[in-house]
């Protein structure tokens, strides 16, 4: 699909799945895009866990080959895939179409500025129970699409997971649903590595 066709489909409610890694996504992505990191092994399973099957989807991969492969995998699995973005981000920007950033903060900034954020954990409940940032709540990645509307974003939400893959997904869903959200880079791996405090249980 050309950038203009993608934009028109977005305005009709289609979701752009950005298949890149979390850092390039945070730096710059199509307005409204959702971050779903690609891999051939379990992309279909993850999309199935996160989104409703009838959601019209457009793939954005860099390089383009990734978008094509993802479109095939998901349409073969029965998803409503409209196509993939031709020419990638470069073509999109050449058309003057809007790109946005996802703000990020690392775990040190999170620790220093705890009161300024609503901390949300994007992992599965069993992981959250085992240990999480004190005071954080859970918005599991598999629930996020359906529950994001209820999220409190005053103060803004800082989303964390083990690494960054599920947190960036949940943050992008929150932003799409009109919430103020930021991504915690480095995730619980960095938090634990620095020996920052941990709270156990379901909070």
């Amino acid at each position, binding site marked *: 699909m050309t950038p203009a066709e993608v934009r028109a489909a977005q305005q009709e409610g289609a979701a752009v799945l950005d298949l890149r890694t979390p850092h390039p996504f945070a730096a710059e992505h199509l307005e409204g895009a959702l971050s779903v990191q690609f891999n051939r*092994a379990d992309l279909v399973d993850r999309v199935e866990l996160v989104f409703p099957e009838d959601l019209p989807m457009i793939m954005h991969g860099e390089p383009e080959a990734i978008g094509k492969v993802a479109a095939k995998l998901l349409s073969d699995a029965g998803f409503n895939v409209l196509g993939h973005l031709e020419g990638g981000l470069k073509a999109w920007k050449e058309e003057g179409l809007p790109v946005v950033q996802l703000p990020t903060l690392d775990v040190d900034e999170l620790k220093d500025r705890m009161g300024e954020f609503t901390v949300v954990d994007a992992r599965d409940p069993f992981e959250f129970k085992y240990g999480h940032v004190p005071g954080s709540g859970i918005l599991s990645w598999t629930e996020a699409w359906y529950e994001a509307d209820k999220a409190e974003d005053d103060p803004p939400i800082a989303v964390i997971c083990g690494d960054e893959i599920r947190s960036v997904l949940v943050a992008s869903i929150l932003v799409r649903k009109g919430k103020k959200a930021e991504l915690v880079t480095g995730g619980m791996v960095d938090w634990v590595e620095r020996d920052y405090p941990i709270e156990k249980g379901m909070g």
Partner: protein
Amino acid sequence: MIFKQFRYEPLNQASYLVGCPKAKEAFIIDPIEGLGADFYVLEAADLGLAITGVFETHVHADYVSCARELAEMNGCPHYLHENAPTTYPYTSFKDGDVFTVGQVDMTCLFTPGHTPEHTSYLITDKSRSDEPWAVLTGDCLFVGDVGRPDLLVGDQALDVMDEGERAQTQFTTIRDILFALPEHVEVYPNHYGGSLCGGVNMSGKNSSTIYYENKYNLAMQKADAAEFAEFVRDTAKPLPDDYEKIKSYNLGLLEKEELKGAGV
């Protein structure tokens, strides 16, 4: 560190991915057209890594490279040693330059002999240790054998040596540069087994160590460079089909259509 060897069996060729799971970035070394640029893109994506650099140990004569295409697709540099005599632009480096991907350092070791620009890449995983862990030896040192010195085409301007002198350079390069590395360092070559880039003693095994090759690599047991050169000549395999065409393409002197399927 994420380290992966890709083997292209029709040509007994090995290419590599060196990446960092934390930085989510990777370098690709010596990609081959037989697998194709999309192959590397998808393999890296499967590992959650974006390709941020494409490196070659040298300009190849026995297989068609897809380094240019892969670098362009990813919008990242294509790196070669500054001696590489290509007609297209690349990002050059010098001996000793270090490229970093997350917690992994890749140090360029200039190892001429097979070609005048040949470079090996020393890999250090700083998340484990400051000691190097592996070396990508390209067509300098193979498992059980060494790279042949007689596949030069199109780069005579830079190469003032004859075949015998290049063989002697190969000997001193391996002895003084590669065998000077810590003996635990693992050796990962660009070829194995039946590849025509080395001689009849090349092993089908796809990796070795500096210790093992120093001790048991037959060519390197020779007393001096002259004996080594003679041994390499005597144990050489036939020249690869179409190597002049392939090398010319890899140098940028031929278009892809002119290859007519050679070297893929």
